[in-house]
Each structure stands twice: as structure tokens, then as C-alpha cells.
């Protein structure tokens, strides 16, 4: 579903990504982890073209992301993305947040879009909040809405960019529960996250990044039980002690 | 289409330079007086003495509500009469330059005081607390701790306001005072070359103000990274 081949990116002389190669197959859940500044957020943003890259290629569902002829908007409408800071649109009610792209991008009618929106809000347990505004919801609720908003586009896969790192600790689980459920239903997912419990529960594979390179790309069992690189071992030791 | 003839400009340069000196004189004196008076107004506005803060608020809001042209007209047409009748100044003495400076200073002080007030309020409250904890009086804390930090942050805004003030000095045209713009207009009118002189004046103002604002921005960026 997603194929990356030797993707490299630099800002001026600063190398952000170096020769990143991996595949995500349909139904797989990939967890991307690594120390801050290792390029994991940049990597995931390259998948839907929010970050341009200078060499290599990324193919999503048969479409090349780096090809200037590619209609990026169309591609992005098929790939759901959830951001660290939720990025709900503050001037729209919750239901309008879910409906807007359905009507303007997918050309669904307002009724279809709202119906679908309500169904998804039901699913993330926020039907009652439909007419409120993002600023009136807690962080955890906002992030669940953001997931529902991405799902409303019927994406073929979902990208999560540190979806729980801006949340207060007591709200992390409500978001992880939604993500776990989604994974169990067979959604193809690529998640940048430090939640190793989540990775152990649902990940098919774990990618470990350091200094812009993919250092480990292995099944979760292999990664957690005997990570090969020293840096991954150090990283795990730091994270799992808490 | 108009046929350009720039020949009257070279000969007029000394006269134009005299005008520029007047523009700069008004600007500089108004900036200095405006900042001093503006600082006092800001301190009054923030003080806990109610009459003082009301006075400052009324002053600032009044001057910010009326056009500069009106303020200048007050100072050119009315204030001299007032002074004549109050202090017995000789009738018809030329007070236009001092009127202009006074008008600009009092007007700009209202704007400066708002910049300075915001600057003082941008200094974290803890600083005043820390200074008091060290045994400083309110005055000492303000003078030694708060104001120096506030001014450091405000310098770019104060300078930008100075550039606006320099542009606004052209409005002394309403009193027929020969500042740079007035001089350019007079030369253009005299030689029938108004088009050229106005374009020249516009270009000179643009070069000066554009350069000055670039310098301010450079300084601002340096402040940010420091």
C-alpha cells in the first residue's frame, strides 16, 4: 500500500532523512519511534506530500507522491492524517469539522456528510458534542474528533503524527483505545508514537529511526525482545523504565 | 503624456535641504519630548492614584481620537491667540515652528504612552516582586528593573513610531511652514514643475523611510535572537 524507496531530504546542508526504505502492506499497523529530532514526523509527512523530499520515491496505492504531475489533493483525500495538536478548525462546530471536507472535496451532499459525521461521532463516543466548538472540548475529546474527521473521508490508510504527545496523561488512553479498535478492524496505519504499550498490543512492525535513518525495521517481537542496534536498545531502556 | 523637466531641482537643492532640516528638527524634538511625556503618561495610567490614571486615560484617548491635522490647526490658529491674550505676546509673532513642535510632541506623546504602557506590562510581574523582595521601593524597582527591560523591548516600536512621525511632519503644510515637503511644493509651484518636484519629494521620503525601517527591522531581529 505504501512503498518508500531511498527517500532523502535536506534543509540546506542539514540532512533530515537519509535513504529511508520500507513498505507498509494492507492491514498492517506500523509504529515509528525514535528519539526527538530523528526525522520520524518528517518521514510520515512525506507520505502524503506535506513535506517535499529531494530524492527517492514514495508510492501510495500505486501513485507516486514525488511526481510533480500527481494530484496531491486527490491523493491526500484518500490518506487520513491525525496531528499532534489536533488541528480541528476552531471556527466550525464539531459536526461541521467532520462534514466540510466531505462536501467540498468528495462532493457529498450536506445530508450525507452530516449523517456520516454523526455515525463516526457515535463511534468515538462524542455524538452529544456534535454542535459544540473545538475550544469547548478537552484535548482527548478533540483528538477523538480529529480521528473521526479523518475517517469521514473513507481513507485507505491512516497516518498518526504523535497523536497523544500533546495530551494530559489521563486522556492518553481514550485516544489509544480508539486507535486500537481501528487497528483491530484492519485499518492500515502508520503511527509515530512513543506509546510502547500500544505498539506491543497492536503493531505488526516497529520502525526505529535515529538521525534521519531507519535503523530497525522489524516485527514487534523481534524489536522488543532483541533489538539489534545499540541505539535502539538504549532508547527502549530509557522509555520502558518509566 | 507629460514631458518631464527635472532642471529646477539641482538649483533648488539648498532650499530643499533647509526644508529637510526643519522636518528633522520637528521630528527629533517631538520624538524626545513625546517619549518623555509619554513615559510620564504611561506611569500615571498604571499608577494606583485614580485621578492620575483617569487624567492619563482621558488625555490619551482624546488625542488618539482626533486627526493630527485638527491638532495642528488648533496649534496654529488657536493656541497662538490664546498665548497672546494670556501672556501678552506681541501679536503676529511667528510661532509656527514652536507651535508645530509642541503640537506634534503633545499628539505623539499619546501614541508613545500606549507603546510604553504595553512595554511595561510586558515585563513579567515577578520582576517587580523580586525587586521589592530585595528591598527596593516602587520607584527604584520601576527605574532600575522594570523600565530598562521595558525600553529594550520597545525600542523598535518607538523607532517605527518615529518614522511615522517623520512622515507626518509633512502636515505642517497646513501652516505654510517650509519643511521639506513645503519647500518642494513651493519650488514646484514657482517653476511650474509641480509634477517633478512632487515625484522627487515622494522618492526622497520613500528612500529615507524605507532605509530607516529596514534598519529598525534588522535591529529587531537582532533583539529576537539575542
Amino acid at each position, binding site marked *: 500500500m505504501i512503498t518508500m524507496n531511498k527517500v532523502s531530504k535536506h534543509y540546506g546542508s542539514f540532512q533530515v532523512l537519509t535513504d529511508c526504505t520500507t513498505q507498509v502492506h494492507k492491514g498492517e499497523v506500523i509504529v515509528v519511534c525514535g528519539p526527538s529530532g530523528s526525522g520520524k514526523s518528517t518521514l510520515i509527512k512525506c507520505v502524503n506530500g*506535506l513535506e517535499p523530499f529531494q530524492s527517492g520515491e514514495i508510492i501510495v496505492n500505486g501513485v507516486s507522491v514525488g511526481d510533480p504531475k500527481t494530484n496531491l489533493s486527490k491523493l491526500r483525500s484518500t490518506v487520513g492524517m491525525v496531528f499532534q495538536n489536533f*488541528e*480541528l478548525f476552531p471556527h466550525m462546530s464539531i459536526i461541521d469539522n467532520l462534514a466540510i471536507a466531505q462536501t467540498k472535496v468528495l462532493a457529498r451532499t450536506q445530508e450525507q456528510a452530516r449523517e456520516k459525521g454523526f455515525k463516526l461521532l457515535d463511534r468515538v463516543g462524542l455524538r452529544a458534542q456534535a454542535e459544540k466548538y473545538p475550544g469547548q472540548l478537552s484535548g482527548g475529546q478533540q483528538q477523538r474528533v480529529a480521528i473521526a474527521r479523518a475517517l469521514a473521508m473513507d481513507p485507505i490508510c491512516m497516518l498518526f503524527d504523535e497523536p497523544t504527545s500533546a495530551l494530559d496523561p489521563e486522556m492518553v488512553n481514550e485516544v489509544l483505545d480508539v486507535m486500537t479498535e481501528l487497528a483491530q478492524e484492519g485499518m492500515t496505519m502508520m503511527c509515530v508514537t512513543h506509546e510502547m504499550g500500544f505498539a506491543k498490543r497492536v503493531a505488526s512492525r516497529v520502525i526505529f529511526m535515529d538521525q534521519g535513518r531507519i535503523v530497525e525495521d522489524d516485527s514487534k517481537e523481534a524489536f522488543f525482545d532483541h533489538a539489534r542496534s545499540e541505539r535502539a536498545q538504549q532508547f527502549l531502556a530509557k522509555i520502558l523504565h518509566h | 503624456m507629460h514631458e518631464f523637466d527635472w532642471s529646477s531641482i539641482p538649483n533648488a537643492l539648498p532650499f530643499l535641504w533647509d526644508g529637510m532640516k526643519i522636518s528633522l528638527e520637528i521630528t527629533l524634538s517631538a520624538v524626545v519630548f513625546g517619549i518623555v511625556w509619554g513615559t510620564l503618561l504611561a506611569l500615571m495610567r498604571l499608577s494606583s492614584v485614580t485621578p492620575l490614571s483617569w487624567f492619563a486615560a482621558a488625555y490619551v484617548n482624546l488625542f488618539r481620537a482626533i*486627526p493630527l*491635522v485638527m491638532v495642528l*490647526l488648533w496649534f496654529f*490658529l488657536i493656541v497662538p*491667540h490664546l498665548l497672546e491674550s494670556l501672556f501678552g505676546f506681541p501679536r503676529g509673532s511667528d510661532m509656527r515652528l514652536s507651535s508645530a513642535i509642541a503640537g506634534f510632541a503633545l499628539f505623539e506623546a499619546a501614541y508613545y504612552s500606549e507603546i510604553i504602557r504595553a512595554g511595561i506590562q510586558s515585563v513579567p510581574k515577578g520582576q517587580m516582586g523580586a525587586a521589592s523582595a530585595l528591598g527596593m521601593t516602587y520607584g527604584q524597582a520601576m527605574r532600575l528593573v522594570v523600565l530598562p527591560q521595558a525600553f529594550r523591548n520597545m525600542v523598535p516600536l518607538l523607532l517605527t513610531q518615529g518614522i511615522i512621525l517623520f*512622515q507626518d511632519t509633512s502636515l505642517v503644510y497646513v501652516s505654510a511652514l517650509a519643511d521639506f515637503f513645503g519647500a518642494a511644493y513651493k519650488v514646484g509651484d514657482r517653476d511650474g514643475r509641480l509634477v517633478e518636484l512632487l515625484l522627487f519629494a515622494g522618492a526622497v521620503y*520613500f528612500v529615507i523611510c524605507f532605509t530607516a525601517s529596514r534598519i529598525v527591522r534588522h535591529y529587531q531581529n537582532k533583539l529576537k535572537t539575542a
Partner: protein
Amino acid sequence: MGYNWNWGIFLQPTATGDGTYLGWMFYGFKVTIALSLSAWFIALVLGAVVGILRTVPNKWLSGFATAYVEVFRNIPLLVQLFLWYFVMPELLPENLGNAFKQSNPIVQQFLSSMVCLALFTSARVAEQVRSGINSLPPGQKNAGLAMGFTLSQTYRYVLLPMAVRLIVPPLTSEFLNIFKNSAVCSTIGLLELAAQGRQLVDYTAQPYESFIAVTLAYLLINVVVMFGMRWVEEQVRVPGYIGGK
């Protein structure tokens, strides 16, 4: 101090016999309002366009917008006004320039003033629009794009609606400025409020009354605009949203 106050002056017939002095004032008041509102409308439209252009990822467009703003910000308003009034007609193609010069002087003064104030203010509005857009969290643009919006849809549905709300307070002060700046147009002979005040001084020998009246009229405009804009601010307030960042 030996000054004879006479507030009744406003109700006396004018020296030229066309109504009362109060009528003059009211005429000036109407000119100020008409001039400021029409210029404001143009300034909003132009300023929005230029401000948006300053934020788009295209060197030529944003460069053009930057130059536009710099030109109108770095030349004094009075000089700009004289350029529009005295210089522009000379630089226009001959038939257009002549048509302008042969039109009614009041029309000439009004048009020059309107264009001048509109463009001068549009540069300032553009700066507010730009800083409004730039003050939005950068993730908002990405979120819009990630949902499949094109860049222009992202501006239309995501960035601009919030930016507009953020810039209502700074726009209030620009709106007030345009009324104040309109007084500069008295210098080319347009009989707006300040010019009428000055004329009254010449005709009536009651300078205090006329200047106080004109000053009060400006204060009145100020108060009305402030309340009006506060009302607008309340209308566009987003529930639960606390300020910009």
C-alpha cells in the same frame, strides 16, 4: 480673557447665504463619512488580496505584494495625496487626464482623496491580514491540505475564516485611522469636516466654537466606530476559543 462665546453662531445664516453654519458643518461631516466609508470598502478588498498574496508560496506574487506595501507605507499620506491629485492626471493618457481635469472640481477632489486613502489604508490592512494568517498555528494549513483541500480551498475554508476573526481588533484601529486621515484631504480643497471647521474660523471669528464642534464630531465618529466594531467582534466570536497565539 475677553473672548465672547457665542454658541448661537451655528444657527446663524452663512455669509454666503446658503443655509446656516451648522449646515456647513453637517455637509463636511457627510463628506468625511462618505469619503472614509467608500475608501474603507476598497481598502478592505485590496488589503485582503495583497495580504493573502504576501503569504502564498510564490516568489513573484509575494514579492509584488511586499513592494506594494512598502511603497504605500513609506511615503507620507500628504505626499501621496498630492501625487494622486496633481501628478496622476498628468501621467494618464491624454484623453483620460483631460477628462479628469475637466470634471467637476469636487469630483476631482473626492476621487483623488478616495483613491489615496483607499490605497494607503489597503497597505496597512494587508499587513494585518498577513500577520493574522501567519499567527495561526502552522498545523492548520497542513490539516487542511491533509484532508485533500487544494491550497485555495485551505485558505478559503480553514485559514481565512480564523484570520478574519483574529484581525477584527487591529482593523478597528485602522478603521478609526481612515476617518482621522481623511482630514488630510482638506489640503487639496475638499470641504470635509476639518476644512469646514477652518472655513468657519475664517467666516465667523468664533474659532473656539467651531474647532470644539469639529473636534467633538470626530470624537463622535470614534465612539460610534468603536461600538460598531465591538459588536462585530462579538458576532464573530468563536465559542471556547481563547485569543490567538
